[in-house]
């Protein structure tokens, strides 16, 4: 029936609030919970509960499933043995580890003022195709956006009087969670700078609090901050500016990649490898929809009379970004004309003329086309 060891002494989990559970415990379960103190064993409890052994065991099992009690020797202290983990033992400890990391996840969420379930996540980022679990993505955004709202003590989840050992125990699991090495094989996209940022902040917290002088300085700054209701962030210039820098850095990388792709495209074009060039330009365009680039590419295709259809699609991209500019529309017209699609050409020229009334070049083209169409 039940495989609970009668000699175990369950203890209530102090860090879980029963009210936060989806399915709230029954009154009987609550009653059993109130009897537990970490000393009384399951066997004894069955005798004294007045509910009968079966019911009592049932309650204990449910409480355990809800995470409301700890059973010593079950999922706790998984790596107490000192021999290297064998393959078989590994999977077992993985399971218990994952429950440890869930605990860590909950504990980390609790350190921040925001409400995790109703948090305003950056949906676009959340949807980015990367090799990270959705919950972890949420956690990263949740933590990252609020890094500046809590102090180093809160970030590590330690008391103001925490000493070296305690700090180490708080920091090490967090460093494991956010160190970029852990994601070496994973595609992390725009989460990469976020992960690194969190790691750096957690590390700064640990290093500041473990160094006597730095900690004293930090505490003083914290007091000043409290007094003036200023922010409670780190005291170094780096952390003061870290958020804007992070943005700059993301943009910076993107800009650099954009430039490189455009250069590659130009080079390929110069060598006559137009299809390859267009591929590079499209990638660049994907990074940054740049009207100028699209126009330039379309124009060059027109000049060299190659890949005219691609030319049209690039000109359309430019038009989409800047709908009021007649240039892109006129260019579409010219490309159609070059292709021999005179009707389409005429249509686009006339459209362009609407945004650039009286343009002599356009007017000339239109009358020339009309003549050609009539004859």
């Amino acid at each position: 029936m039940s495989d609970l060891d009668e000699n175990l002494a369950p203890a209530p989990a102090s860090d879980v609030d029963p009210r936060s559970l989806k399915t709230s415990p029954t009154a009987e379960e609550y009653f059993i919970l109130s009897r537990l103190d970490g000393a009384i064993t399951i066997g004894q409890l069955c005798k004294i509960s007045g509910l009968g052994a079966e019911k009592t065991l049932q309650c204990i099992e449910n409480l355990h499933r809800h995470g409301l009690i700890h059973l010593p020797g079950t999922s706790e202290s998984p790596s107490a043995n000192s021999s290297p983990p064998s393959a078989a033992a590994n999977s077992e400890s993985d399971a218990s580890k994952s429950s440890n990391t869930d605990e860590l996840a909950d504990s980390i969420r609790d350190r921040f003022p925001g409400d995790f379930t109703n948090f305003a996540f950056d949906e676009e980022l959340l949807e980015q195709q990367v090799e990270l679990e959705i919950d972890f993505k949420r956690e990263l955004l949740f933590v990252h956006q609020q890094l500046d709202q809590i102090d180093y003590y809160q970030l590590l989840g330690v008391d103001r009087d925490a000493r070296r050992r305690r700090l180490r125990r708080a920091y090490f699991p967090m460093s494991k969670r956010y160190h970029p090495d852990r994601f070496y094989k994973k595609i992390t996209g725009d989460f990469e700078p976020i992960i690194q940022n969190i790691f750096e902040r957690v590390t700064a917290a640990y290093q500041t609090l473990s160094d006597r002088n730095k900690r004293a300085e930090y505490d003083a700054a914290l007091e000043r901050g409290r007094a003036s209701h200023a922010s409670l962030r780190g005291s170094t210039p780096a952390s003061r500016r870290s958020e804007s820098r992070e943005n700059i850095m993301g943009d910076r990388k993107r800009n650099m990649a954009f430039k490189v792709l455009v250069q590659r495209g130009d080079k390929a074009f110069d060598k006559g490898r137009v299809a390859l060039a267009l591929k590079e330009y499209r990638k660049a365009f994907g990074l940054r929809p740049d009207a100028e680039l699209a126009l330039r590419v379309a124009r060059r295709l027109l000049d060299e009379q190659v890949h005219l259809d691609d030319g049209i699609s690039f000109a359309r991209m430019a038009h989409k970004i800047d709908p009021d500019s007649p240039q892109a529309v006129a260019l579409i017209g010219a490309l159609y004309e070059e292709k021999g699609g005179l009707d389409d050409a005429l249509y686009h020229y006339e459209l362009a003329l609407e945004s650039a009334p009286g343009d002599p070049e356009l007017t000339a083209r239109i009358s020339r086309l009309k003549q050609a169409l009539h004859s």
Partner: protein
Amino acid sequence: MERIIGIDLGTTNSCVAVVEGGTPQVIPNKGGYKTTPSVVAITESGRRLVGQMAKRQAITNAEHTVYASKRLIGRTWDSSEVRHCIETCPYKIVQGPHDDARIKLRGKEYSLPEISSIILQEMKLIAEEFLGEAPDKAVVTVPAYFNDNQRTATKDAGRIAGLDIVRIINEPTTAALAYGYGRDLDSTVAIYDLGGGTFDISILDIFDGVFDVLSTAGDTFLGGEDFDARIIEHLAFEFAREHRIDLRNDEMALQRLRDAAEKAKIELSSMDETEISLPFIHSKDDGEALHLQTTLSREKFEELTIDLVQRTLKICEATLQESGLTVDDIDDVILVGGMTRMPRIQKEVKDYFGAAPSKQVHPDEAVALGAAIQGAALVEGSDDVLLLDVTPHNMGIMVHGGGFEVLIEANSTIPTSHSHIFTTVRDNQTSVKIVVLQGDNDQAEKNELLGEFVLSGLRRAPAGEVEIDVTFEISADGIVSVHATDLETGKEQSITVSATSGLTEEEIEDMIAENEDYLVELKHGEELEDQRARVRKAIREIEKLIDQDSDGDEIVAQLQQRATSAIAEARDYLESRDSDALQTAGDKLEKVLQSVRAAVHSA
């Protein structure tokens, strides 16, 4: 399956390891040894020799045999290290095109990354034979105190050898990984690593599989070689006193002295006294032969080298202070590196730390094992091991007046970044040069130059008005990048610091191509040898058979005729490098051989 091997590229010995089925293990070389001497030689015929083979022929080929090249990698031409090697090394060191040092062997100049690449190539081969496939990724270790130029040069060596070095990590740190892997530790340890060329000390916190480096320091010019040098000096001095001849001016004699000194040093680790006997070490102008015959006691040896040992302890002291700890905080001391087998060193370390050093790790293998552990952890993304390594030197930029402004402090955990706002110092200053440096001196010029770039187009304004943000970043793989942003215009400049490994991108690409050519050539040479052997064997067998009498038999005589001409033809190609012709000749001969055999049997 993707795999990342671990390589300890040592000054004297190199070692390669891999994690197989969760167990890290060192891969022995063809000779069955777990370490391979870091010696490279070029033979008269242009062939490269590596390891034991190279070491063995060193005496007769001293000028073209390179050892301890790690001491030179990433150093500039006028550095004291290069100066020192020019004086003491038998191989020829010349100035390279980028203010770097190169080694001239058989008329060709080799850059130091190239020399290291030859060793890495060998380690890669050792791993390939064991794994059955060529690994293309590696974690390679360097002394903790290596600066960025030395690290970049090591990375370039990997590229030339066709190995992507995904991480450069610090030797003592990896030794700690080997020590703590698979053990449930909660302790603070000191790693004392005295190898052939370098001394490193690191202090780490180990808990829950996290290896957190608290501080690290070292001396990249203090190792076993220096202990050897003391013996050489001593022997040469005694010899000079007796014979008025300085043996160190004679390349061959010096090489023999060097071998004898190391041998004596090693023997003195287990004996109180050792015999040094070098007969015919020198022949005088009048033809008289001189011999060197003496004994060296352990006591004398210790007296000659005690200051070196003390130097290591001074560095330990500084490192402890840096990490804010005292010897009492250290739970365990781990000895790594061949030199730590010297009893006096063990004793001094014990006295200093107040506890006997741990014997948990193998002094020659721990570093490579740790590198393999880190490689496996990266591939597996596993929860068991996380290394929090540090940057060993201050990093920063030159400021007005030649000062050095530190932006990232030594012993910062990486990855890390830091930014600082600087202002213009002159009225109407429109550009600013950012000089990136690494080192521990207040004066910019006394530190290592990592790179420089110019941010231009600043607004004309009174001094101090325009602000420039300079951000340093060291990524998890140790790559340093620097960005400068003009805060008014948003204009930015950035560099990835890698310009000063001593090689340009183009040169590296040429070297990669050259290395591949060499390997193809080598392979081709081996193929040719095989084909030649086949031709020779066929010739031998045919000759054996047709030597027997023809008995006037018409058919046999005809066959003999055919065989003789085929043999003559094949001999023409035997010396050529024409693989197709050799192949055809071999095929032809084998056909003839068959016919001859058939004829002989039926006769």
